[in-house]
């Protein structure tokens, strides 16, 4: 407590970013430190777990100290520590979990283990201070593509998810196929702005009628087949057109399914979360489809779409207020489900 505010320290090390943040009363970001490994990973075309763990270990203490300093608080002011315990890379998760447990034990501060995916949804509480459940959430990132019904703060019901590749993964893989490099999401988003989304016909994969699941692995095969046939025919490939057409096929299906889910559950709001929620075309399409149905779409700003400690702090705060407690047995769970 400081100045009457309940202060939560959030720690996140599930993948690329070493991040820590202080959040007041579950809503107000006092500091948000993110130390990214993306430069190192660019060289490898993806996340390298061994490097990820080592870098997290090198940075975690410094990142936490900076988060406290920037929030102008001391360890004794912290009321709660929230930490991501899954899903993610096991070695990376363990660094954050160990740091959080040590600090919670040493300073006698309550601890909450947070599901990374719940954190992404909670990012919206930081952006939209009046937002309260119920709402429909759409979580789209490198490892996930999920439609989640959120009836209350501490309750999530997954309605659909990917059956093969996640949306962000499809972006990464197709970016690689067409030579755009890593990270695929932003690269394709940018290239697509210069391209024609109708140039190449990619299939829209809706699966069985009524399904809220996704399947994106066929798209990379379609991209490969297209490039092959163009090369064989001796035609020059317009990368921007391929990027735009591919992106359109992914985001159109996501937008339509999210709006369909909101309608079916009679939700008046769709809340976007995860790295791919920054995709400009997805934002445009979903906003158009939703407003036609009288549904409001809320999006966190890009900094809160990427992995960060603030969203973990907010999720921890609401779990704590709902009576949840985590003990020192907390362990990393790389395959944690929603």
């Amino acid at each position: 407590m400081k100045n009457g505010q309940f202060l939560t320290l959030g720690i996140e090390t599930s993948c690329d970013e070493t991040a820590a943040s202080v959040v007041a009363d579950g809503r107000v970001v006092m500091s948000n430190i993110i130390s990214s490994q993306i430069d190192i990973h660019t060289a490898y075309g993806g996340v390298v777990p061994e490097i990820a763990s080592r870098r997290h270990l090198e940075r975690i203490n410094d990142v936490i100290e900076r988060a406290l300093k920037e929030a102008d608080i001391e360890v004794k002011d912290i009321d709660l520590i929230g930490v991501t315990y899954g899903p993610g890379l096991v070695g990376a998760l363990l660094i954050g979990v160990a740091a959080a447990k040590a600090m919670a034990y040493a300073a006698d501060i309550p601890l909450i283990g947070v599901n990374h995916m719940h954190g992404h949804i909670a990012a919206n509480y930081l952006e939209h201070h009046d937002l309260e459940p119920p709402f429909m959430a759409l979580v789209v990132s490198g490892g996930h593509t999920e439609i989640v019904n959120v009836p209350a703060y501490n309750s999530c019901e997954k309605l659909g998810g990917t059956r093969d590749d996640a949306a962000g993964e499809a972006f990464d893989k197709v970016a690689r196929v067409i030579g755009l490099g890593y990270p695929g999401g932003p690269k394709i988003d940018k290239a697509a702005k210069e391209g024609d989304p109708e140039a190449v016909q990619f299939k829209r994969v809706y699966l069985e009628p009524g399904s809220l699941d996704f399947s994106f692995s066929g798209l990379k095969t379609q991209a490969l087949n297209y490039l092959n046939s163009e090369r064989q025919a001796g035609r020059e490939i317009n990368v921007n057109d391929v990027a735009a057409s591919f992106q359109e096929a992914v985001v159109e299906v996501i937008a339509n399914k999210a709006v369909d889910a909101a309608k079916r559950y009679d939700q008046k709001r769709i809340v976007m979360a995860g790295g791919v929620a920054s995709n400009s075309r997805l934002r445009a399409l979903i906003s158009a489809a939703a407003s036609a149905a009288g549904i409001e779409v809320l999006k966190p700003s890009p900094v809160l779409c990427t992995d960060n400690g603030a969203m973990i702090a907010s999720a921890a705060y609401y779990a704590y207020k709902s009576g949840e407690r985590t003990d020192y047995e907390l362990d990393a769970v790389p395959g944690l489900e929603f």
Partner: protein
Amino acid sequence: MKHLQNRKLRLNSEEETRALGLEIADALEPGDIIALIGDLGTGKTALTKYIAEGLGIKEEISSPTFTIVKEYRSGRLPLYHFDVYRLGSGEELLDIGAEDMLDGDGVCVIEWADIAADVLPADSLVVKLDYGDSDDSRFAEIL
């Protein structure tokens, strides 16, 4: 698994990939390792899905690229599904704690196994997948 080896197949459709997956699954015993080698889009994850189906696994088999490994326990044997594309070497595979799974009570299917070949046992079933001569076909070579 011996009877599966030394074969070259032309898989003409997803259905034929499924048949191969089910055939492999039938032969699997605890500790078996399937090393899948092939470029992006040659059907590694698809074949894994059908191996899982053959093992009676109920969960959806989604790509493990993000977390490197996913574990499924609802079938006849536990399945550890790896995608080591993001790793630099076999040593890094051991670094993430794969040893217990490789020597474990279940079956390991490893995508991009060529990257980690140095730490995989010699009796692994190697399946090389390649693009076919049409959009829907694939070549599979079992070693």
